[in-house]
C-alpha cells in the first residue's frame, strides 16, 4: 500500500474519532437533557464517511461501480419482492455473497447502498442511517472473513446467522430505542433486545435460507465475471 494512502486513511479515521468525541461532548455538556438519537445518528454518519471517502478516493473503475450497482439492485429487488414476509428478506444474504466474492469494501458499499435505495421504495425515515450502517457492517465483516477466499458453506451460514442476529439486530434495536424513547438505561436496552429477538431470529434464519439457495449460483457467476473481465482483484 502506498504511503500516502495509508496516511490519509489514518487521518480520516482520526478525524472521525475526534468528531464523534466532540458530538458526545456537546451532547453531555451543552444540552440539558440527553439527545441520544441525534448524537448517535451523527456518529453513524461520521462512521460511514471513511468507507465512502475511500471508495471515492481511489477512483474506482466503471466496471466496479456498475457491478456493485447490479448487486445493490438485486438486494433491493429482493427486499421489494418479499415485502409481504416480515423480516424474511434476502438483502443480507446478497450483501454477504458480494463481500465473499470480492472484498470488505464491496460488501460495505453494497450493503449501505441497498439500505439507502430500498428506502426510496419503502420510505425514508429516522431508521435509514441505522439500516445502511447495519447492512454495511454485515457486508464488511463478511468481506474480512471470506473475501476473495475459497468459500466453505458451513462457516458462511454460521456467519450469516450470527451477523444478522447480533450485528444487524442489536444495532437496529439500539436505534429503535434511541428513536422511540428518551430514557436510555441498560434495562430498557435489554427489554428492547428481548422484544426484537423474534424478529431478528426470523431475519437471521431467512438469511441462512437465502444463503443456502443463492450461494452456489451467485458465487459462481461472480467468479466467472471476475475472471472474464479481470476485475476487483
Amino acid at each position: 500500500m502506498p504511503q500516502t494512502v495509508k496516511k490519509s486513511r489514518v487521518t480520516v479515521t482520526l478525524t472521525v474519532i475526534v468528531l464523534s468525541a466532540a458530538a458526545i461532548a456537546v451532547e453531555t455538556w451543552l444540552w440539558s437533557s440527553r439527545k441520544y438519537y441525534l448524537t448517535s445518528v451523527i456518529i453513524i454518519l461520521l462512521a460511514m464517511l471513511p468507507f465512502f471517502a475511500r471508495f471515492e478516493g481511489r477512483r474506482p473503475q466503471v466496471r466496479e461501480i456498475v457491478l456493485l450497482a447490479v448487486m445493490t439492485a438485486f438486494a433491493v429487488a429482493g427486499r421489494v419482492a418479499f415485502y409481504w414476509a416480515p423480516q424474511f428478506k434476502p438483502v443480507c444474504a446478497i450483501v454477504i455473497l458480494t463481500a465473499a466474492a470480492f472484498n470488505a469494501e464491496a460488501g460495505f458499499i453494497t450493503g449501505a447502498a441497498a439500505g439507502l435505495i430500498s428506502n426510496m421504495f419503502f420510505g425514508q425515515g429516522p431508521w435509514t442511517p441505522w439500516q445502511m450502517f447495519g447492512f454495511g457492517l454485515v457486508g464488511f465483516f463478511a468481506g474480512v472473513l471470506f473475501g476473495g477466499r475459497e468459500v466453505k458453506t458451513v462457516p458462511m451460514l454460521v456467519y450469516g446467522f450470527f451477523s444478522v442476529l447480533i450485528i444487524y439486530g442489536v444495532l437496529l434495536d439500539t436505534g429503535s430505542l434511541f428513536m422511540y424513547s428518551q430514557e436510555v438505561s441498560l434495562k430498557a436496552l435489554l427489554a428492547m433486545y428481548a422484544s426484537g429477538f423474534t424478529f431478528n431470529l426470523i431475519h437471521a434464519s431467512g438469511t441462512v435460507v437465502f444463503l443456502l439457495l443463492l450461494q452456489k449460483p451467485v458465487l459462481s457467476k461472480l467468479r466467472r465475471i471476475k475472471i472474464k473481465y479481470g476485475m476487483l482483484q
Partner: protein
Amino acid sequence: MNDAFSQLHPAASFAFFVAVITLTMLYMHPVLLIISLAAAAGYVCILKGARHFGKTLIYLVPFLIFMSVLNALFNHAGVTPLFYLSNGNAVTKEALTFGFYASVMLSAVILWFECFNVVMTSDKLLCLFGRLSPSVSLLLSMALRFVPKFGRKIRSIDAARAQIGQGSAQGGFIRRVKNSMKVLSVTLTWALESSLTAANSMKSRGYGAARRTSFSLYRFTVRDAVTMVLCAFAVGVTAACVVSGGIYARYYPSVIISGFGGIPALGMAAFALLCFLPQLFDAKEALVWRRLRSAI
C-alpha cells in the same frame, strides 16, 4: 398536489427539512412540539391530501396513546405519584406527561418524513449529493434504475419459461422454489453481462477521462437563497431564545415548563415561521397568481 415549495432547488428543500426535523427532535418544549406537529400535519394534507392524512391518523393516534402509557408504566421517575401498580411501582404524572410529549415529537418527525419522501425525490437527492461524490452517486443512480429493469426482465423470463412448464407458479412447492431460483439465476447472469457491456461502452466513450457533468432540472435562484436565509434566521432566533433560557422544559423530577413573555414568544414565532414556511410559500405564490390573473 399543487405545492410551490416542493419546486424549490433541492438544496433549499433539504436544508428546510434538516432544520425542521433537527429542531423538533432537539427541543422537547410543548409549544414548539405542537407548532411542529400542526405544520407537519398541514403540509402532509397539502402534499398527499386530507384523506391520506386521515389514514395516517388511524395508526398514529393509537401509537401516541400507546407510547405515553408505555412510558408511564416503565418509567417511575418523578415526584407526583398518581396511583400505584400491583408491584408497588408508582405511575407518576411526570412520566405520563413526558411520554405524551415524546410521542407528539415522534409523530411530528414521522409526518415530516412523509413530507420529505414526497418532496425529496430520488433525482433531487442525487442532484444534491452527486457533485459531492460522483462514483457513489453513479452507483446509486444506476442501482435505482436497475430495480424496475430487473423486475421487468424477471417477468419476461418467467413468462418464457412458463411456456415450457418451468414457470415460477408451476408444479408443487419444491418445484416452484426451484423454478423461481432458476429465473433469478438467469436474470442475474443477464444483468451482470449486460451491465458490464454497458460499462465497457461507457469507458470507450470516455467515462472517467474528465469531470462528469450531470443533467438536472434545478437551478439555484434568488428565491432558493431567500428560503435558505429565512431557514437559517429562524433556526438562529429559536436557538438563541432556547439558549438564553426563555424557552425551557423539564420533565423530571418535576414538570417545569416556562415560556411566557416577550423573548420566548419571539423564539416560538421564529420556530413557527420555520415550520409553516411551505404554507407561507404556497400562500405567497397563490397571491401572486391572483394578482397576475386579475391584471390581465
